[in-house]
């Protein structure tokens, strides 16, 4: 087998992040002339396999096992390990969601094969494939290569590829059996649940002022709220603000929070870690103010200001009030 994309299910359908990874795999497959197959397993695996059979893939592998009906890191990892041992793919690819982070490294440990995570792209160079990811607070980029024979495991960062580019087709479904020993499955899980529904809905906002670590201290929050009133904007935040308890979780923008697409996204003191950027880079106009000229937020900003928000924000509020 050439390339195996392992699918993640959510509410009976294929997770968007898995489709994005499949788009990456389809592109890689074309570049290096390898066929792409997919693996469906876990709860609702039959539905996932049917959905996947409508994609442009070589074949769909279906694993059905009662041990996979609720989430178990050990069962999920062992399933992928056994399928990889049977089918010998050159690449094993997943969308690197928060669930996949929990078990894909186990597959790496059990197969003793490299796992390269949060990959945003790839390059082919001679016979080599290089995997690109961001490092050191998202400020620098590195190309990583596998140094061993056999499969390389790749986890693609959310939103690195667009699920809209998925190529449709038709593929056969083939059932593969795995042997899971329930005595080896250490953990048990409960059903996922959502917290704090009914909080702020930023997804419909036309203007968002979003704040990050650069706000400095909680005493500066009224300054931000004054600007929000003057600009008639909602307030969003990056993770450190929510972690500090200055705003409730429902204000968080990014992979842990909401994905937003306002007309104006004004980022104040936000460095622009990729976990935040994936939730706001679809905004129509991004304006960023940050003291650090190397802050990665400037890479996605339409307008950038290197400066002190404590100095600029009160003046901006005054000026907006006088408009």
């Amino acid at each position, binding site marked *: 087998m050439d390339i195996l994309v392992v699918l993640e299910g959510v509410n009976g359908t294929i997770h968007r992040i898995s489709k994005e990874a499949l788009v990456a795999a389809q592109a890689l497959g074309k570049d290096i002339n390898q066929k792409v197959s997919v693996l469906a397993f876990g709860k609702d695996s039959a539905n996932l396999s049917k959905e996947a059979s409508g994609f442009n893939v070589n074949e769909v592998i279906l694993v059905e096992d009662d041990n996979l009906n609720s989430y178990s*890191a050990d069962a999920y990892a062992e399933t992928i390990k056994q399928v990889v041992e049977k089918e010998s793919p050159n690449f094993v690819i997943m969308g690197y*969601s*928060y669930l996949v*982070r*929990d078990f894909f*490294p*186990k597959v*790496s*440990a*059990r197969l*003793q094969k*490299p*796992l*390269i995570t949060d990959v945003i792209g790839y390059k082919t160079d001679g016979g080599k494939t290089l995997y690109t*990811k*961001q490092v*050191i*607070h998202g*400020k*620098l*980029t*590195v*190309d*990583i*290569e*596998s*140094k061993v024979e056999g499969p390389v495991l790749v986890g693609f960062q959310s939103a690195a590829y667009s699920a809209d580019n998925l190529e449709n087709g038709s593929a056969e479904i083939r059932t593969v059996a795995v042997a899971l020993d329930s005595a080896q499955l*250490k*953990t048990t*899980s*409960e059903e*996922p*649940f959502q*917290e704090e*529904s009914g909080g702020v809905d930023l997804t419909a906002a036309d203007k968002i002022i979003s704040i990050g*670590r650069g706000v400095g201290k909680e005493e500066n929050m009224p300054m931000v709220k004054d600007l929000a009133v003057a*600009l008639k904007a909602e307030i969003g935040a990056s*993770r450190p603000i*929510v*972690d500090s308890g200055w705003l409730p979780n429902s204000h968080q923008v990014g*992979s*842990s*929070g*909401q*994905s937003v697409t306002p007309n104006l996204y004004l980022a104040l003191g936000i*460095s622009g870690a990729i976990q935040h950027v994936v939730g706001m*880079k679809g905004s129509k*106009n991004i*304006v960023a103010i940050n003291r650090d000229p190397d802050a990665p937020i*400037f*890479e996605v*900003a*339409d*307008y*950038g*200001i290197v400066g*002190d928000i404590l100095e*600029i924000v009160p003046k901006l509020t005054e*000026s907006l009030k006088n*408009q």
Partner: protein
Amino acid sequence: MKIGVLVKQVAGSESPLRIDSNEKWVDEGSVDFATNESDSYALEEALQIIERSGGEGEVVVISMGPADRTPKIIREALAKGGHRAIHIQEEAPYETDPFMVASIFAESIKDESFDLVLSGLQSDDLGSGQTGVILGELLGMSTATLVMGVELQDGKLRVKRELESGWFQWVTLPFPACITIQSGLNQPRYPSLKGIMGAKKKEIKSIAKGDIKVSGTPMQEFSKLYSHKAEKRTEMIEGSADQIVEKMVDIFKKEIKAI
């Protein structure tokens, strides 16, 4: 309960970064170092687990890094309440393969027989997010990641895992367990003056990385480190604060039509 906590010293979020001439890492001379953010939350959780069980037990701080700078964050962790520390001394070039890093940790701590090992979910520099899970696998422990809540229940560990977009899931694990902590589950404490003084007397066991025997060689390697290209053309607004504000309001009005 005997708890090990992995902490890593990384470049701080606002540190200047200059790529080294070998294009594999940054020139450390210009870096401002800090404790990896999620590791601070992991340490705090370890200290609170011991406090909740009436002070019974031990928190061992474990860190890998060079001898000249790593002791700073180890002492800080001891000042906050860690009981003793293990320092794996590593000189540049640093190990970047998470499987090798986990193997070195596993070999260094296997005789400690920890009930629980905690770490941050990922390092802010390499960001592979795998070390904790692979370490747990190598030591035969149960594992869970992105933990936002920890409960002890009937001799087991019940943890709240974060999923995307405000979703969570509770997972129950048997001991020994190795879990990785997501930022935000507690409020990390500051070291007290008494803690800082006391930390000077606490044991730090130093081991040279070269003396730790692990099998195998790195399975993945950095090929090249570089600055990325901007996704968009960014128009920089410059001038005094007043001039910047004037230009911003103009852009809000005419270009963005936000006011």
